[in-house]
């Protein structure tokens, strides 16, 4: 039987088990829907904020109004004392509290300084880091205006010249690739890489275990000399196909399906969600293709260690969350301990998720070639290991080698 015939055989089996199409195409599309809804607001706005004005002067009102007009802050209440402010924070009715102290305007008007109190609940650092940065920027701009006015009086110089003395060094910020720091761009791509992986995993698992069931069926039929079912009659060839060919056929077929699903997802990201793919389509497709080959090989390799499809699914469910965190997609690999980083580098998702995000956001990845080679190596290693395990099972007449009792 040629490799092409093995692939066609796999195709026929898929047609009899439509679940596999559902895994490969459905998982990614459903996750795309679920997570694009979650990240639809794109950036965190309207962080519940409480303002406390102990000074009640025109100057303090001017400053507080600026906080109020900032879109990241949603002023849920105004309070008159720090105690009330603490209560609001404690009850989580606000995550940020800003308090202007008594004598704020008097201290400033007398040539002194005053300190604004900014308290944030930092249990969740995502909204808090953005909103405190905004609060500090507002206060800094306000500070500059006051300082300029005061320095004008003292030095007799005009505003723009005085501003250069008040703030002699300014910084121009250039944020590359994701200038708005959009969470959709940051998160969605990696989550979809994980979903695609899970879909291919389940499909390859289903394929392997159907093969085992068929082999069992054939053995049982021989023993009982029973009449085989029509479905088995057409497909009773698995025993005659060399393992490498059978496995290669599966890898090729499920990689191709995975690649197709990947292209559908890319199309949806670009045309429906309006994300811009900055890299060329050829580079994107090639990266996806290599990823799918490595994931299909990993799926087959993983499946080879289990007795039943149920057990395979149960164990593989434990992997996506760990794989996602280890991929360095959110917490960078460079900040992980070396042995964790080494473990992460054994997973195709680690190479692919960051690569795809860079292809979307930057249009290139300096690690493109390295990532492709790494994924290909992982795929080849898994393929080899898979053959060893199946051969071992065949020789020992023990068709399965569950690694746990």
């Amino acid at each position, binding site marked *: 039987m040629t490799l092409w015939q093995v692939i066609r055989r796999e195709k026929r089996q898929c047609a009899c088990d439509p679940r596999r199409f559902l895994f490969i195409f459905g998982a990614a599309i459903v996750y795309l829907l679920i997570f694009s809804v979650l990240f639809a607001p794109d950036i965190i706005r309207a962080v519940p904020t409480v303002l406390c004005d102990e000074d009640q002067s025109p100057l303090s009102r001017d400053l507080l109004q600026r906080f109020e007009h900032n879109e990241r802050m949603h002023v849920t209440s105004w309070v008159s004392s720090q105690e009330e402010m603490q209560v609001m924070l404690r009850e989580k009715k606000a995550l940020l509290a800003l308090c202007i102290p008594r004598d704020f305007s008097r201290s400033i008007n007398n040539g002194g*300084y005053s300190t604004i109190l*900014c308290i944030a609940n930092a249990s969740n650092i995502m909204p808090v880091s953005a909103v405190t940065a905004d609060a500090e920027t507002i206060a800094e701009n306000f500070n500059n205006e*006051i300082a300029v006015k005061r320095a004008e009086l003292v030095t007799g110089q005009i505003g723009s010249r005085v501003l250069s003395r008040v703030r002699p060094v*300014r910084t121009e910020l250039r944020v590359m690739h994701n200038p708005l720091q959009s969470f959709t761009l940051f*998160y969605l791509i990696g989550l979809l890489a994980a979903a695609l992986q899970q879909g291919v995993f389940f499909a390859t698992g289903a394929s392997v275990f159907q093969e085992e069931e068929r082999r069992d069926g054939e053995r049982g039929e021989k023993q009982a000399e029973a009449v085989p079912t029509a479905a088995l009659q057409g497909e009773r060839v698995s025993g005659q196909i060399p393992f490498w060919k059978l496995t290669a056929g599966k890898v090729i077929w499920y990689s191709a399906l995975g690649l197709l699903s990947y292209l559908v997802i890319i199309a949806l990201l670009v045309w429906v969600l309006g994300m811009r793919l900055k890299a060329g389509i050829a580079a994107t497709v090639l990266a996806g293709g290599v990823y799918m080959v490595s994931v299909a090989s990993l799926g087959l390799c993983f499946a080879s260690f289990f007795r039943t499809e149920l057990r395979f699914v149960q164990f593989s469910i434990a992997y996506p969350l760990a794989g996602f965190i280890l991929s360095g997609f959110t917490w960078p690999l460079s900040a*992980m301990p070396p042995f964790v980083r080494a473990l992460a580098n054994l997973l195709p998702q680690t190479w692919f998720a960051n690569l795809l995000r860079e292809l979307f956001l930057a249009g290139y990845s300096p*690690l493109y070639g390295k990532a492709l080679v790494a994924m290909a190596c992982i795929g080849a290693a898994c393929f080899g290991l898979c053959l060893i395990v199946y051969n071992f099972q065949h020789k020992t007449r023990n068709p399965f080698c569950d690694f746990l009792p």
Partner: protein
Amino acid sequence: MKSGAFRQIVQEEWEYLRRRNGSVLVLLLLLPVCYSILFGLVYRQNVIRQLPTAVYDQDQSSTSRKYIRLFEDSEKFNVTAYVDSQEEMERLLREESVLAAIAVPPDFAKHIKQGRGTETVLIVNSANNTLSNSAITFAWEINRSFSAATGQQLFEGLNRMPGEAMNLAYPVHVSVRLLHNPLSGFSPFMLAGLSVQGVQIALLLAAGPMLVREVEERRFAPVASSALLMLGKMVPYWLASLAASFIALLVQVQFFAMPMRGSWLEIFVLVNAFIFAVLCVLQLFSALSPNQLTAVQIPMIYIMPGTLYSGLSWPVFAMNRAAELYAAFMPVRYTAENVRDIMLAGYAPTLWADCRALLCGALAAFLAARFVFDRKRRRIA
């Protein structure tokens, strides 16, 4: 009679788990603990440090060197390259040899001395928001301090006393206090919630098939009502995952410096409500599923997005209506943040309201599951 049947159901389910499903029992007990250890190691550094940074100093004056030294001395930045041209700086950024770059313009010191002001450039690779946020925040801080100090010196040059000069340049100070997680560390931010998600995943893979297996095997058809059977089958999973939850949290406290400022009793109540809710939801999926495999695969769509829908990272107030509605049906949404709050802050203001929500949800799921399961059993009978 009923208590005897109940005990028999619990015992048989436990025996099934222990003898026929030992590896899954191991997974149920160990997965949350393994997640705690693995993610604890991942986040061990806690905050982003040593961001590879390039410096392009076109001025080469003592003032510019003083400015750059602030970045060199900061643990957040690791100045790995000093470049001589814009092209080289951009090449390093493009190759990702550095993730941030600081460019100091020519005549930096001269413009400051002349009171004309000057502008440095900070370029940050923001493909990963976690890195870029950290770089931007600390670069602003460094810049603010340097600018205020330089401004003060300029006013001193105009015959002002140091204190007066400082007040002239910097009249409005901001004192920032970060409650509960003062370093904005990732371990306190994520670990507790991830272990809750670990418990949920472990329950999914272990308890997912429990009712559909009963339909397939029909072991207790004559001796127990559906409700009794459902409750009895829950017990072994409940106890195992309760033990796993506490071990996971203890591991975090003991080995990964997670604070435990609140009450273990509150955690106990909350985790119990959570486990009950997850088990009831899984029973509903199980009752609706045609086979054991589907009973594990279908709830994945519901369980796996839990980490992000829980409000643990993307806050609930930032969700749109559709996302908020979807999250409202997830037990983890009422649990992960509360566990984190109890551990970090010592209290969770919405604890009891969320426990009530969990119990109400659990009850609704239980009744729905019972209805479906009952019908299936009757059909088989």
